[in-house]
């Protein structure tokens, strides 16, 4: 028992200086800005095709989501020869479930508007870490569905930006948003002011 207590006693392991210099220091904010803008305009471009383009996914004459339906059908298909686009059976079953329930209608709105929102949030640096994480999640799902394209690069870059969430939006709205709102474990000026007022009342 004492062995476990010693092994798991509370001790904070500090990140090495180089790691902190890259991910927690504002001197590399310009580098994160470039990464953010690259990711942001790629997502905005992808989302714009789905929201406004000629072959858009949403607000089309007729039922929405037929483009996504076609994408899912191609993704879950198992060819007679060669490898199927999806490697994991559970993910194929997940897409099949959504396809069979006709979820492509509302899900195409989620994807199209999600891509535009993530793109804009990354460009203006608003909640850059959360936006990057959402972008990484979308890239991950495209990869799982067998669509490689530029998604591997987008996925890795988005994860790096998410790691650098404290400084990624320094040249952006996060410069004001993060100190004002703070984090769940350390409320910012505005949130702590509201909490104090609530306690006083």
């Amino acid at each position, binding site marked *: 028992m004492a062995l476990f207590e010693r092994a798991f006693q509370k001790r904070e392991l500090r990140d090495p200086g180089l790691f902190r210099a890259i991910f927690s220091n504002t001197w590399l904010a310009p580098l994160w*800005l*470039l990464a953010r*803008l*690259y990711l*942001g*305009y790629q997502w*905005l*471009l992808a989302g*714009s*095709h789905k929201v*406004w383009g000629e072959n858009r996914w949403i607000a089309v004459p007729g039922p929405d989501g037929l483009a996504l339906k076609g994408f899912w059908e191609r993704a879950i298909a198992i060819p007679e020869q060669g490898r199927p686009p999806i490697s994991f059976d559970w993910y194929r079953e997940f897409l099949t479930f959504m396809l069979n329930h006709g979820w492509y209608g509302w899900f195409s709105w989620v994807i199209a508007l999600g891509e*535009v929102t993530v*793109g*804009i949030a990354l*460009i*203006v*640096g*608003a909640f850059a870490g959360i936006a990057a994480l959402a972008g990484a999640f979308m890239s991950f799902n495209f990869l799982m569905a067998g669509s490689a394209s530029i998604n591997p690069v987008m996925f890795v870059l988005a994860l790096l930006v998410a790691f650098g969430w404290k400084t990624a939006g320094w*040249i*952006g*709205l996060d*410069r*004001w948003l993060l*100190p004002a709102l703070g984090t769940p474990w350390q409320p910012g000026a505005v949130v702590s002011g509201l909490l104090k007022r609530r306690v006083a009342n």
Partner: protein
Amino acid sequence: MGRIVLLLMGVAAWAAVALAAVFITFNIGGKNQILMFLPILAVVVAVWAVGELVTERVFNRD
């Protein structure tokens, strides 16, 4: 009061960046990615400079 107006102007400037990015994507998107990236970068850098002034006047002034 002056600080709040200044801060609102700074937020409006970043909102203008979002609109500019959408406008640039809508008009140039897909044709040339470098032509699309550079104007967005230029707008962001310009508004960042405005944002630094706002930060200085609103948050760093006693």
